[in-house]
């Protein structure tokens, strides 16, 4: 079968829709993950969705619901334990280790096919059902609404926490809200690329975007664009070469865009510096003339 034929089939269409939604939410949260130095939180939340999935599977036969509920519990635990930023990494490590242990135990109690839970480790985007797409749409809408509402104070709290606090922004409340948004997004992303590769959608596109854009808004737009390019491009490539799993292409495309951004980024920065230098010289000349 060629790609065009594949694209008429529901499994491929579901995958592309799911990929679009996940790239959208990952692209939005990515720049904040970097500004708030939360790469480890992303990794932790992603791995722990395995525990949630195992619990959901064992209790209700529904790994996705288990992973989503589990991620909120995990975000709460990380937020409460790691109040100060210096404690945060160790708090995440503690929750991660305990949670993974629990996940292995839960999976050992499960009598059915373990692949339903292990799918979440490596991703299973070509096995997405309509119900899962509906959950994804609801989640993407919720994440976007929350992010649009808290965008400005969250940016303020992330880049300038001391002044934000003095201006009455609650760093603690925003931190917890963002942690929950992050855990939910990451858990959903884990179903596409697998927990082990979540960082390729939640960090890499934003890291690449930062290298080539100057303002916060353009960074977010570029970050979303790269995440979408990597996801949809990866899916289509996986349909062409069907012996290779899509996660391979998605992480490769994502990494390639980062390398490209690093290569062209210095040129952009240099031109910007030169422009700045010209402005400074001009200002100096004007001051002298006045």
């Amino acid at each position, binding site marked *: 079968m060629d790609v065009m034929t594949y694209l008429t089939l529901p499994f491929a269409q579901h995958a592309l829709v799911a990929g679009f939604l996940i790239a959208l939410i990952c692209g939005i949260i990515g720049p904040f993950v970097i*500004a708030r130095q939360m790469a480890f939180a992303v990794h932790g939340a992603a791995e722990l969705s395995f525990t949630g999935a195992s619990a959901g599977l064992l209790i209700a036969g529904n790994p996705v619901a288990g992973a989503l509920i589990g991620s909120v519990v995990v975000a709460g635990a990380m937020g409460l334990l790691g109040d100060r930023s210096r404690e945060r990494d160790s708090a995440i490590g503690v929750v991660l280790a305990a949670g993974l242990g629990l996940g292995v135990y839960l999976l050992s109690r499960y009598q059915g096919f373990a692949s339903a839970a292990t799918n979440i480790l490596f991703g299973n985007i070509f096995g997405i059902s309509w119900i899962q797409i509906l959950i994804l749409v609801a989640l993407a809408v919720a994440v976007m609404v929350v992010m649009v509402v808290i*965008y400005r*104070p969250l940016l303020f709290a992330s880049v300038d926490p001391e002044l*934000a606090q*003095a*201006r009455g922004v609650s760093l603690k409340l925003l931190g917890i809200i963002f942690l929950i948004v992050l855990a939910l997004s990451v858990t959903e992303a884990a179903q596409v690329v697998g927990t082990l590769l979540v960082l390729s959608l939640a960090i890499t596109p934003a890291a690449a975007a*930062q290298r080539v854009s100057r303002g916060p*808004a353009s960074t977010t737009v570029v970050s979303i664009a790269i995440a979408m390019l990597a996801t949809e491009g990866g899916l289509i490539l996986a349909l062409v070469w069907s012996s290779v799993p899509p996660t391979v292409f998605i992480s490769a495309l994502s990494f390639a865009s980062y390398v490209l951004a690093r290569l062209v980024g210095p040129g952009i920065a240099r031109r910007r510096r030169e422009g700045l230098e010209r402005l400074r010289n001009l*200002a100096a000349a004007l001051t002298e003339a006045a």
Partner: protein
Amino acid sequence: MSSIEILGLRAGYGERSILSDLDLKAGPGEFLAVLGPNGSGKTTLLKVLLGLLKPTAGSVLVDGTAPKPRNRVVGYIPQHRGFDRDLPIRGRDLVTLGLNGHKLGLLRSTRPERALVERALEQVGALDYADAPVGMLSGGEQQRLRIAQAILGEPSVLLCDEPLLALDPGRQMEVTRVIDRYRRERGATVLFVTHEINPVLPYVDRILYLVNGRSVLGRPEAVLTRETLTGLYGNPVEVVRVGERVIVLAGDEESHSEIDGHHHHDHGEVASKWMS
């Protein structure tokens, strides 16, 4: 009327009081330097005035009302922390966040808000590099943006937490001049926490010197003397004048004497020295 009125202030964290029985009245247009070793309560005092820390005793009024966050009467320059080189934030974005960053929503600003930001950038002479990423600017340029953030909305009280930290002497003078000019034009009260007295000495009206919860308040020539500071520290203190500069040498036998005022030590910095 005083812009800052503090009576019998006691404040601290948990059981520990860092400030106690502090009285301070400062009027419009007054430039007050706050000096003292680390842990003596300088930052605590600013937190109380910002409304971020509730006093355990005493009364505090800023411009006639109790301090609370988001008070436009107070401008605040937080302690300097460099920005990440890759941070995708322009100077103008940073200053604008200082104005409306607490409001929910996306980054849209109204026309009057943009005009206010423009004016503040102009006042501190930062218009030339307002559209460059903050991480690429020098320490002095970043500090000017900080001042622009603080003077948005023309506050009548300016709280500055170590604004000269990590700047070279030339930039220290420049930053101090910008703050002083705002004070004179607006008639604002400036509370200037610093380790380095010399760059600000020409502008200072009074000095609040804090040591271990005790304090002395007065004109520089009265506070920066051997007698006053020896009494305050409870240990022999030398005050040396070299040309225009004042160097305070405070220490006891048990502690190493501090060479560089920039370095922060956790073990009660009993020895300190200011140089510009």
